[in-house]
């Protein structure tokens, strides 16, 4: 286990994390980081870490979260269509997580009131893996899982 990584996770505060990253030479000076980008969450390797970085509790499986237009077998891991629909009232955000990617979190969508909790996008997958759709509704987290088999990896080269 890399001790520096443990330390980074413990700091929690985004500002400290960025400063440390800069000091460690991971971020080049002048590289602008977009505001409101949760760097800690996008650096996580497991569901538990991701949940902690997103500030949530333990998610529960829910039938209200479904995948649409998502294949069982993806021929090209570089372009895997993923659609997530939530039937849970007051859905606030939808996140897509890919278990065996180098970093688990792929995307987070914030759904303001008036927007339908239904998102379609395309992601990269390094290898066959479970993907999770994580839905935040009324402050609680729900998820659904689906296995996608990849015949040609899309990460690395």
């Amino acid at each position, binding site marked *: 286990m890399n001790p520096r990584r443990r330390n980074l996770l413990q700091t929690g505060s985004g500002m400290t994390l960025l400063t440390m990253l800069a000091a460690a030479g991971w971020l080049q000076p002048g590289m*602008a980081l*977009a505001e409101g980008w949760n760097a800690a969450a996008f650096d996580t390797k497991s569901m538990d870490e991701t949940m902690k970085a997103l500030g949530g509790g333990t998610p529960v499986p829910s039938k209200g979260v479904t995948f649409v237009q998502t294949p069982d077998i993806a021929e090209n891991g570089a372009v895997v269509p993923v659609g997530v629909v939530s039937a849970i009232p007051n859905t606030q955000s939808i996140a897509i997580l890919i278990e065996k990617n180098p970093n688990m979190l792929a*995307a987070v969508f914030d759904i303001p009131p008036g*927007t339908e909790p239904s998102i379609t996008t395309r992601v990269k997958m390094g290898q066959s893996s479970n993907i999770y759709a994580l839905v935040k509704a009324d402050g609680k987290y729900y998820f659904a899982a689906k296995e996608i088999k990849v015949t040609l990896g899309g990460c690395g080269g």
Partner: protein
Amino acid sequence: MADPMRIRANVVGDSTEVKVLMNHEMETGLRKDAQGKNVPAWFIQNVTATYNGKTVLSAQWGPAVAKNPFLSFKFKGGAKGEKVQITWTDNRGDKRTDEATIS
């Protein structure tokens, strides 16, 4: 400056369906070039969609979103002839805003 996005917005029932195709490399930072050096990460981090000055969707993306990202979503309301704006910001601080007319 990055290439323009292709945006299509259509009225479906009482909501508007927006489909966006962005032009972006979306480098993960894990890939290596022919010399074995890491290709630096370069990907879209934030995406915002606004309609009538109101945010209808905001997203945070990691490098796992596919190259030339596609995104589709629906929001309530919207009328023909009105505009939807999409803005993205990448990890180099590059920015692009495009707008489309709802049809």
